[in-house]
Each structure stands twice: as C-alpha cells, then as structure tokens.
C-alpha cells in the first residue's frame, strides 16, 4: 500500500476549468484518524484504478455537523452545513461519494432543506455501481473462502435502508459471509452514533461495542467487515478488549477490495 495515489482537489479542477465526475467527501475521521485514513487511501486507490475522475475538497472541507446535530446543537450543525453548502454549491457539485455513513446521511438527507441538493452515495454503493459498469473488478484473492461477518452501520442500514451494496461487494470477494444474529434492519449499533463516539458511555453493565464484538465473535470470523470509520474503531477496540487482535481483523469493505486487487 505504498504506491502514490492521485488525489486532486476541487480547487485544482477549478483552476483547469474542469469538473470531476464525483466529489469524494473524506470526512473528519477519514482525514485525521490514523486508522480511518487507511480506508480513505484504499478507496482513493480504487477510484484511481477504476479511472474515476474525482476530487476532494481538501482544506475546504469541514465537519458536516452530524455529531453536533445529534448532540442537540442545531446551531452548530446548521453553521457547518451552510458553510459546506456554500463551498459545494460554489463548485457546482452534483455528485458526492463518502466513506462515512454519518456524512452520507447528513449530506443526503439533511442538507437539501438548507439549500444543498446533491446525489450522495456511500462508497459501497459507488463501488457497486462501478462494478456494474465494468469499471471495477472485484476478485476474491486472499479473501476467497474466508469466514467474514459484516457489521451494518446504522446510518447506512436502518437510517437509509442500504443493506445489500456492501454484501454484494463481499459476495464478489467470494468470502464465506456469516451473518450475526442481529443483522440488517435489526443490526446492533456499535455504540458510536449520536455523538457517543466523543464521550464516555453512561453507566451500565457493558459497553455497546463489547456486546457487538461478542456477537461478531460468535460467528467465528477471520475478518469483521465494516462500512464506517466509527464502527471500525469501535469494533477494533472490542476485538482488542477480547484479545483477539492477532486472529481477527476489522476491515472496511473498500480496504478488502483494494487489498484483494493488491493495490
């Protein structure tokens, strides 16, 4: 994973008087979190490889406001939203893809009313469409036949009814997909949503990510596949807590695809 990636910014496109096919919304976790950055890069490589003309906002991107809104701070959310919408509309963005289901949900559902209407896709949906168009090849490679379970991100699944895109991609990787007891519309949250990522949990018997990790471990997977940087962190912490980090990896679907193609 050392190959140089080509990630132009919107400003660069603009300077050339060009418009990319799609804007890659990286998100805060994707930009700053060391683990999530790997997902960002893997996805960027897949885009490069598929020949997709894309751009990022780079330093012009700011938090969508999701954690602020869900923490109850509507002011801060709308400030963030308005600033982002100004930038996005300024660049006449039509289509956005993001590796974060929280950004995905906010951009897709909560921005239109504030003046920001775009076609927004989660990266698993986008990769699926690349696959259908024949631009992306997904082959099992080292994942072929491996036992894998998929953790549904709430903000992709229940919040936006997308359960199939990530599973279809995993299917193409020829993995042995084992569902957890609570999956799809009844999937258990990793515990990070609603701004919980940024605070200590309330007192209880157990942390939610531990509960979810235990459920994932019951399927005896080699890999826990995820589609959200926050779920990824929570599940990774859970696996560490269970001292299984040597046996079980937590990986984003995009990372798996990039990995299988030796990108």
């Amino acid at each position, binding site marked *: 994973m050392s190959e140089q990636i080509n990630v132009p910014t919107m400003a660069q496109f603009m300077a050339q008087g060009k418009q990319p096919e799609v804007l890659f919304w990286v998100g805060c976790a994707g*930009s700053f979190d060391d683990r999530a950055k790997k997902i960002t890069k893997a996805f960027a490589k897949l885009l490069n490889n598929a020949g997709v003309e894309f751009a990022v906002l780079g*330093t012009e991107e700011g938090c969508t406001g999701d954690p602020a809104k869900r923490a109850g*701070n509507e002011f801060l959310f709308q400030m963030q939203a308005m*600033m982002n919408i100004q930038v996005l509309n300024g660049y006449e963005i039509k289509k956005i893809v993001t590796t974060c289901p929280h950004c995905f949900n906010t951009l897709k559902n909560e921005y239109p009313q504030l003046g920001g209407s775009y076609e927004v896709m989660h990266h698993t949906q986008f990769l699926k469409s690349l696959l259908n168009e024949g631009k992306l090849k997904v082959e099992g490679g080292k994942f072929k036949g491996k036992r894998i379970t998929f953790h549904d991100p709430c903000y992709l699944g*229940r919040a936006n009814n997308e359960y199939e895109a990530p599973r279809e991609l995993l299917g193409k990787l020829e993995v042995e997909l084992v569902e957890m007891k609570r999956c799809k519309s009844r999937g258990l*949250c990793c515990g990070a949503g609603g701004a919980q990522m940024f605070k200590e*949990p*309330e007192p209880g018997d157990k942390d939610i990510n531990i509960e979810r990790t235990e459920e994932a471990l019951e399927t005896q997977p080699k890999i826990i596949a995820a589609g959200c940087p926050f779920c990824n962190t929570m599940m990774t912490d859970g696996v560490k807590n269970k001292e299984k980090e040597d046996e079980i990896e937590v990986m984003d679907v995009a990372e798996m695809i990039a990995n299988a193609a030796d990108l």
Partner: protein
Amino acid sequence: MQYLPNILFLLLLIAGIGYFTKNIRKVIRNIKIGQEIGEVDQKGKRWSNVLRIALGQSKMVVRPVSGLMHIIVYVGFVIINIEVLEIIIDGLFGTHRIFAVIGPAYDYLIASFEVLALLVLVAVAVFWIRRNIQRLKRFMSPEMKGWPQNDGNIILYFEVVLMLLFLTMNAADHSLQDMGAAHYSEAGMFPVSNHLLPLFSGLTEGTLVMIERIAWWMHIIGILVFLNYLYFSKHLHILLAFPNVYFGKLTPKGQLKNLESVTNEVKLMMDPSADPYAAPPEGAETPAKFGASDVMDLSRTQLLNAYTCTECGRCTSECPANQTGKKLSPRKIMMDTRDRLQEVGKNLDANKGEFKPDGKQLLDDYISREELWACTTCNACVEACPVSIDPLSIIMDMRQFLVMEQSAAPSELNVTMTNIENNAAPWPFNQMDRANWINEN
C-alpha cells in the same frame, strides 16, 4: 314494563359510549397541547402505510410468536365486533339473533366467531404465560413495575371473561334451541360451545334462559366497561394505531428535521450585509424555545405517539443502550411522555382549561438527562415499533433543549463542539491539515 330491558339497554349504551367519548375528547384536547405539525403531505403513501402496517400488521410478524398470537387476537377482536353489532340491535329492539335472517351464512358467521373466540383464548393464555411464567425480559423492565404490569394482565383477564361469556351465552342458547324454547329459534352453528352442552344438561328452561340472559348482558356490559377501560390503560393502541401510523415519519429514518428558527438565525449570521445592530421588527414574534423540556414543546405527532404506545417493549429490547444496562429505555420515554401529558391534562381540567404551572416538567421530573445522553441515535427503537412510534425524535428534541437552552451538554461533548466550531472537526486538528493524508505514507 315490557320495554324495560330495551330502555335499560339504551341507557347503558348511552352511558358507556358517552363516558368513552368524553375521555376520547380529552385525549384529543391533550394531543392538541402539542405543536402543530403543518400540512400533511404524501397522503397516498400514508394510507398505504395504514393498510400495510396497522391493518396488515406487517411489523408485528418480525417476531413470529407474539406476532401470530397478536394477529389472532386482533382478527378475533375485529370479527367478533360484528357480534357486538347484533347484540346492540337485539338489545335496542328486543329481537333475538337478528342477523339470523341472512340464512345459512349466519351459521358460518357464528361458527367463525366461536373458533376465533377459542383461538383468542389460546393466544391470551400464551400472552399471560409470557408475561407471568416465562417473564420475558422486556416485560420485566423497571418501568413496568406496578401499574403497567397489572394493566397488561387486566386486559388479558378482560379478554378471557368476554370470550367465556360469549361461549356460555351460545351454549345456553343452543340448549334452549334444542329444547324448542320460545324466542330461541334455531340459528347458528356452535362448533366450540357445543362442548359446553353437557354442563347444561338437566337444567330447566327457566334456568337456561337466565344463564343465557346473564351471559348476554354481562357480555355487552363487559365490552362497554372494556371500552371505557382503554382510556385509563396502555390499550388505546387498538384505536390510535391507525392514525399514528398515518402520521408516522415517511422520510429516511436517519433524517432528523432541521429547525427552521435556527436556519433563519444562521442565515442572518452568515449574511455579510446584515445590520448587526438591527432591532427586531415591530411586532416580531419572540424567538421560539429550542428543543423540548415539557410535553407542550413536543409535536402533536409525538404526543399521539405517547398515547398510542402499548408498552410492548420491542423498542427497549432492541435498544443498544438498554441491552447493555444503561438507564435509557425508549418505551419509558413514551410512557413518561404520556404520564406527563395526562398530568398536564388533569391540570387543565382542574383549572378551567388554563394550564397552571405546577413546577414540574418532562425533563428531570420524568426523563433524566442520563437517559437522554445514553442514546446512540441508531434508530433500532424506531425500526422495532410495530405502530410507527418515534421515541428517538423526543430524545433529540430534549437534547436540543439541554444544549441550546441550557448549555448542559456532557463536558466531553462541549469539547467536541468547540473543536467543530474552531477547526471544523470534532478533534483538535487544524483544518489546514485536512488533506495531509494524501501525501502521508
């Protein structure tokens, strides 16, 4: 004297339905304490939801055992109501089994009522066992202690008594028909109450008539009592599930509503030509309160949600916070909202329709902050509700109140929000470093 029973019946009916109407009007008035919801869009979609989710019970069967049992009781309830209609006509006009005029179809009608009555008895027995012997976790939560638990059982006992009275009435009627008693002309088919006949063998015609009449009267009185019990129990869902599903959320579950009052302020803040010293125009409304601390701040839909909740606990049993021992229970959010709304309603009754501040509110007096902050907004509760209740929306509105009116967020969240405000990320990283990942290895 001849018309005494008819008059008595009429009075009973008027009293029963009258008192029920009075209480339902109270429910409607209380719901209207909430904020108006504006124009209702997508009516077609809403009706189709009513057909699918409420009438069709589509979300009940997600849990097959309770779902199937519920469908039996539900179908039994709806179908057996045809019988109630007959009882009302008979009672008012002194007829007996008036619907028998439809001929042989009547036999099958009565037969189907009987089979359903038996199935309802079985289903109710299963429900009772689940609540009292198996003691399913979701019926044992702290918020179910006391009245809610008794309430659940009382409803089951009501159903048992009503079904048994119905079958007793039929069995006695059948015996009388076999005897050729006057007024008891052959009508109906009794596949279930048939088996009760031996109990009545050897009884005189007079005794049988008495049993039949007592069962008949007790059945209709029971139904009227049950109807009036609804208002005092969690059981209003048998009526409110339909409007509640109609008014349910149609947008994606992840989409939270944007506060318009905030949008206006934010626009003003971002408008470079706005006059920072401008006084609000003459007669401008005082800015709305942000979020909700009491039931009057919630929307009418949310209050309807509260009255509709039948405390099944599917939401709570799917809630990640609740499953890991946190205080939050989405069902309790709904129960608290209803309890507080009832309290406010009583306050209105006592003060000629004016609300007299009682020093209480939904926040803290009913719902604690600890509960509110435990939510992960995962929408599991919303997904689980068979009648489209949205507990998450109340939690979010109350968080808005805490943060925007009281600046009472947990301190870590204040740090997060300050970060977002200062550097457009929840962590203290510089926005200028946002693209650094591109060139890192």
